[in-house]
Every structure is written in C-alpha cells, then in structure tokens.
C-alpha cells in the first residue's frame, strides 16, 4: 500500500524529528493522520524529505483521531495522529476521549512550544499533558532528546497492551530540532507496565464447573473480545457452540459471534433485542467476557439480572466489580481466557444440563417470537428501518465496513446490520460522539482501499465533521455517507417525546444544506431518495460510484427507535413499540439519568 523505504539502519546524527519518523517506521506504522502547524513544522519538514510513512491530511484534528480510530478498529493496528500545539491538541481532545472510552489503541503526537517557553503562555501553548491526562491511557512530555526514541516505543507498547487506549506524546519544538540518539523498539521495555493476560487456572476450573451446572445460562460478551484479535472471536464462537448456550453481544462486541448463528440472540441493552434483555434478566448464570456492565446495558442496577450468578472475565481489573458485584472475577485477555475455558471444558468432558437447556431455549424462542424489530411498513414514507434493511441486504455480500454517527440511525444500524465477522463495525459507543462516523470511515477506507466503507449517518451528526468530505476527495476514497434524514435530532426528539411531554426544545433543524449539492461542491457525488420504491436503485448506484458519495435519504420524521429500555427501568420492562409508550411513563428516578 505504501512505498515506504526503510530508514537508514545506523542513524548517528539524526534530529529529533528524524528520530520520531524512524521510530514510527520501526513500529510498523504505515499511515499517520495529521494536520500541520508551527510547533510540528520540523516533523513535517523531515517527512517532506523522507517517505517513511504516508501522511493523510485531514481537515480538523478531531477527525484525525477518529480516522486513526477507524483505521485501528478495522485493522487491529495502532492508529497514529500528528497535530500541532495549542488548538491542534485541544481539537484532538474529543477524539482522544472517544478512544479512551472505547479502548482504541491510538498514539497521538502533539507539537509543543520549545522547552524554555513552557509555562510562559507562549503563542499556541496549551498544557497538553494536563488537559489530556484524564482522557488518555497515559501521556508523556519529552523534555530530553535522549529519551525521545524510547518514549515513542514505550507509548506504542502502552497503547496496544492490556486494555488498549490512546497515548499522547507532547513534543516541544526544540526537541524536534536537536540532535537525538536512536534506539530501536527491541531495546525498550517498560519498567513496570505489564498487564496480566493469562487467567488464573483455578478460576478457569471454577468457571467451567459453574458453566456446566447452569440451567439458564447466557454469554454476555463485548468489545474486549474484538480487541483481543480475530482469534478470540473464533474461540468465542467455538466455545458457545460447544455449550449450545445463548449468547448476546454489546454494541461494541457485534461481529465477535456471527450474527447468523442460531445461538446469537442479537444485541443487548437499551435498544437491544427483547429476547436478549429478557434472557439477561432471567438467566441464572451470566458469563461476561470482555464487557463492562455499562449503564446502557444494565438498566436499573437494583433489578439487574436478580437471579443470576455472574462470572466476569476482563483484562482490566478496574472494570470488575465496578457497577455490578460478580461472583467470580477473573483477570485476563479474552482470547487467552477462551482458550483456557475450551481446554478445561474438554479436559473435564463437561456437558451442559440438556433438559434444563431445552427448557431455557423454549422460553427464549417465545421471546424471539415477539419479533421485536418489526415496524409498520409504508408505501409512501421511507421508514428508516426499511432503508437500513435494504442497505444491508444489498451490501452484505461485499462484507462492508460500517461506521455510524450517533443517534437513532446508529441504533437502527446496530439492529439491522448483521455482522458475521469482528472489526467490520465501528461506532462511538462509550462517548457517543456525533461526528465520529465519517472520519472513522475514512480511516477504515485508507486501511482497506478496495472495500466498501459506509457511514450510516444522521443529518445532524454528519454536519459535525462534514469537512472530511474534502479529505475523502483528496485521497480518492470512495466512502459512502448514507444519511437517514429525518430533519430532527431524532434521538433527542424521542427522549423529549417520551420523557419531556413532547416539548421539542431545539431538536428540529430549521435549515439544512442541500446534501446533494454539498457532495457535489466537495467533488463527490450526491443522491437523494424520497420514495420507498427508489431505495434499492439508489443504493445500487451508490455502490457503483468509485468516489465519495452522500446519499440523502428522506425518512419518516416521526419514527422512534424500539425496543427501548427507558432510562431507569429494568430489562423486563421494555417498550416494544409506540403502543407501550403511553402505558409506561418514565419514573422520576429515570428522568435524572442520561
């Protein structure tokens, strides 16, 4: 993909900027998403003179981080970002927080004013390490060129090991200019940072015993499985099939078990499947692998899975016993955990309780029969669910990479796209960042130039990083933005309808651009769909166009996203459709929740 020439093996007299680029090359970095400015000019100059890495010029630093996230999540590699000091760094903060919440490995290089100016309110100075301390896994300020190469290698180690996350390296301009020694990645080992990966064998024995004995078991798995690498997803699927137990996945975990597998119940959580949430409520054993009992999953904590024992496998000890107290906590990497569980299950010749399991599945089938995703079809209005059903049906054989913005369209995408493999689904789960989808799709497209990359968008969210169309055009990236245009901040409107008496305060967008012309203005291609009968035709057109595309799909403005666990409610208290809405008003307690 890149034509990177190897940097010189012995580099006696390199500048800091050259050391930085060589360190990136030695870390196997092929692409950097960035935006120049005064405090990183030496790095850009060194880049001009070499071709160690490919630089993708974004149009806003937030987008650089999201693009790096899309790249990282669709490849399993570390995403790399390069931005200038001050406003460059502060613009990156939302992206860094997003990467922290969703455990995405990102290394972000920020320029800084020269060391002797730090603390003087110099031009474009910001306390970057101070600002980013709470929104990174770790950060560094390099004040000594002797430590430069080592720091970069260490940053990559920290970003990708254990629970992955973003790492910032703040680089004063004088450090970039000064001569600096080089050390390779093989010579760097962190003094102490060695997260535990291998689970305690005794805990595995105990877990297998509990799993074999369960009468109403449920696997509840999340992003930790995806982050562990494709092998973990294979092992999860294998283990689930060995047991014959039902499995549900979080928003972040979609794809780690093939959606077509009959043991997969669908997504869990606030807009998850009825059967998943009911199974979670009624199970007697919850086997959590790499999920974190997020409030979007648990609903009302005091009524969360009240009859269950819980096993929690997680690589991050601080995720265990945080919201929900579990019966068997096990620290370890999802892949290693699953390999150990499978080995122990075979060794013990464990067998599930067939009769109990059959009864459990009977119950689950009844819940499934409710067909919770059904919606009222229309001949005249495009239902957003219909548009996504068609988008999925017409693209699934192309194994697309799907990203989303944030809102109703995001939840519908999670419900209606069926992922057969991990790392094909990228959405902002933890932070819920509007504006994530387009740059993330750009990152995924850079990594997979010949594949179909679609951003399922809302008309409000897309405007938050719409400038990235320009990036897509510059690099001839055929990303597809599929806007479910309801003219509303649909998710906000839905909450106002459900919780705030239909007082639609500031959630309607009075003025929207003509997205078709906008696509055209950027140098891409725009389509508009206004009739259900046109949906298929335009989607097929869109796939054919080898340029950035915006599809403006005008959907039913009043549609709400169901099923829904209203905030503050328990799993067995879901709203299945508009009929339930009036019958189950939100509690006062729920009103205060986000």
């Amino acid at each position, binding site marked *: 993909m890149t034509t990177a020439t190897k940097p010189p093996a012995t580099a006696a007299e390199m500048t800091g900027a050259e050391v930085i680029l060589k360190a990136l090359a030695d870390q196997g970095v092929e692409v950097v998403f960035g935006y120049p400015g005064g405090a990183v000019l030496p790095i850009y100059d060194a880049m001009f003179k070499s071709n160690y890495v490919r630089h993708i010029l974004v149009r806003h630093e937030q987008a650089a981080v999201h693009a790096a996230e899309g790249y990282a999540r669709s490849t399993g590699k570390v995403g790399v970002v390069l931005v200038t000091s001050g406003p460059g760094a502060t613009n990156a903060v939302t992206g860094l927080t997003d990467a922290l919440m969703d455990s995405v490995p990102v290394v972000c290089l920020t320029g800084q004013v020269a060391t002797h100016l730090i603390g003087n309110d110099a031009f474009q100075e910001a306390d970057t*390490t*101070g600002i980013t*301390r*709470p929104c990174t*896994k*770790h*950060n560094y*300020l390099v004040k000594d060129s002797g430590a430069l190469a080592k720091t970069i290698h260490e940053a990559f180690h*920290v970003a990708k090991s254990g629970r992955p996350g973003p790492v910032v390296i703040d680089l004063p301009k004088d450090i970039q200019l000064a001569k600096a020694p080089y050390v390779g990645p093989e010579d760097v080992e*962190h*003094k*102490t*940072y060695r997260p535990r990966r291998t689970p305690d064998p005794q805990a595995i024995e105990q877990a297998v015993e509990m799993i074999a004995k369960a009468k109403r078991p449920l696997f509840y798995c999340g992003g930790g499985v995806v982050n562990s690498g494709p092998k973990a997803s294979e092992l999860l699927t294998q283990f689930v099939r060995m047991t014959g137990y039902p499995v549900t996945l979080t928003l972040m975990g979609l794809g780690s078990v093939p959606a077509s597998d009959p043991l997969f119940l669908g997504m869990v959580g606030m807009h998850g499947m009825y059967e998943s949430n009911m199974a979670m409520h009624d199970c007697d054993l919850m086997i959590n692998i790499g999920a974190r009992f997020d409030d979007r999953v648990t609903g009302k904590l*005091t009524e969360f899975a009240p009859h269950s024992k819980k096993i929690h496998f997680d690589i*991050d*000890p*601080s995720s*265990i*016993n*945080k919201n929900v*107290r579990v019966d068997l906590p096990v620290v370890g990497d999802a892949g290693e955990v699953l390999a150990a569980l499978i080995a122990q299950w075979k060794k013990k010749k464990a067998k599930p309780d067939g009769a109990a399991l059959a009864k459990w599945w009977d119950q689950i089938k009844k819940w499934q029969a409710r067909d919770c995703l059904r919606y009222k079809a229309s001949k005249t209005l495009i239902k957003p669910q219909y548009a996504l059903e068609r988008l999925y049906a017409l693209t699934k054989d192309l194994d697309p990479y799907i990203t989303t913005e944030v809102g109703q369209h995001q939840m519908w995408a999670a419900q209606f796209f069926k992922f057969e493999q991990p790392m094909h689904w990228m959405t902002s789960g933890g932070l819920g960042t509007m504006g994530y989808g387009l740059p993330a799709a750009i990152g995924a497209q850079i990594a997979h130039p010949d594949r179909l990359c679609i951003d399922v968008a809302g008309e409000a969210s897309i405007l938050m990083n719409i400038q990235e169309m320009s990036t897509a055009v510059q690099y001839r990236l055929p990303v597809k933005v599929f806007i479910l245009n309801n003219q509303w901040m649909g998710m906000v409107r839905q909450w106002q309808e459900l919780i705030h008496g239909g007082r639609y305060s500031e959630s309607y967008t009075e003025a929207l651009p003509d997205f078709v012309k906008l696509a055209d203005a950027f140098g891409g291609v725009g389509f508009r769909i206004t009739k259900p009968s046109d949906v298929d035709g335009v989607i097929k057109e869109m796939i054919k166009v080898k340029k950035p595309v915006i599809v403006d799909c005008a959907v039913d403005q009043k549609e709400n996203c169901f099923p829904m666990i209203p905030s503050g409610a328990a799993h067995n208290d879901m709203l299945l459709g508009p009929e339930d809405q009036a019958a189950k008003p939100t509690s006062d307690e729920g009103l205060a929740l986000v």
Partner: protein
Amino acid sequence: MADKIETHTLSVLVDNEPGVLARVIGLFSGRGYNIESLVVAEVDAARHLSRITLVTSGTPMVIEQIKAQLDRLVPVHTVRDLTIEGAHVARELALIKVVGSGEKRVESLRIADIFRARAVDSTIESFVFEMTGAPEKIDAFVNLMRPLGLVDVSRTGVVAITRGAKGI
C-alpha cells in the same frame, strides 16, 4: 446495598516522574473518591521511586475500585492496602501553636509533656509543639490544646509501613 464506609491506608510505590502526583489526585477527583490524607516523597533516589501513602474512605466496593484504578496507572508499581494486610505502623507529624499565659500556659506544657510533644519554638506568650504519633493521638492532643489557646495546626498526614521483617 447500604455498605459500611471504611477507612483504608494505601501504600503506593510510583515512578518519581513529572505528573505522577497529578495523575493520582486527578483520579480521585475525577471519580469522586475521598482523600483524607496524602503524603508523597522520594524513597529511592537511584531507582527514581516515590512512595505515596494515602488514607481514603469508602464502601468496600469503592475501596476495591480505588486500588484497581491506582494500579492501572502506568507509572504505578504496586498498590498495597495496609489496612487489609494487617499489622502496620502509622505515624503522623504535627506542629501545634499555642498562645497564652499564666495557668493555661503551664497546663499546655504539662500536657505536652504527657504526650511527649516537644516545644521547638517558644516566646513569652507562645509555644510551638512538635509531636509524632498515630493520628488519633494527635487529634486528642489538639483537642486538649483548644481551650488552652490553640492558634494553628500543621499536620503531615499519615505515613505507614508494615510491621515485621518483610518489606512492603
């Protein structure tokens, strides 16, 4: 669910690098944990190690969280919960200024003697007492000084170490 609030003394060994204290304090303020006292100083100059001794309170689940969150910080080497691990010595140093004359002045000196507090500064009308001890002992002394002309108290917060031959 109404778990009891417990007070724990944690001993945290960290790399003595810029920002490490800000990381620890930011963790506590960002996640809403309590700090009752926090003491930090370098303990091994050659290896650039500092020890942070901190006293915190919360439900057992919160205390467990605090330890896991601290341990997750990259420059943190070890987190030890001295309260759980058993016998340990906890000491605090305090400087206590008392102003007065006559009977009150004599009384303050007498009590200081009982508590093994030393006068490290004195004028005709004031004393500064220095004392070390368990925090409760210092509390008791400070309370006794209150009616005798207590003006200022400066305390270090607790430092602690395990009893016996084994290191932390």
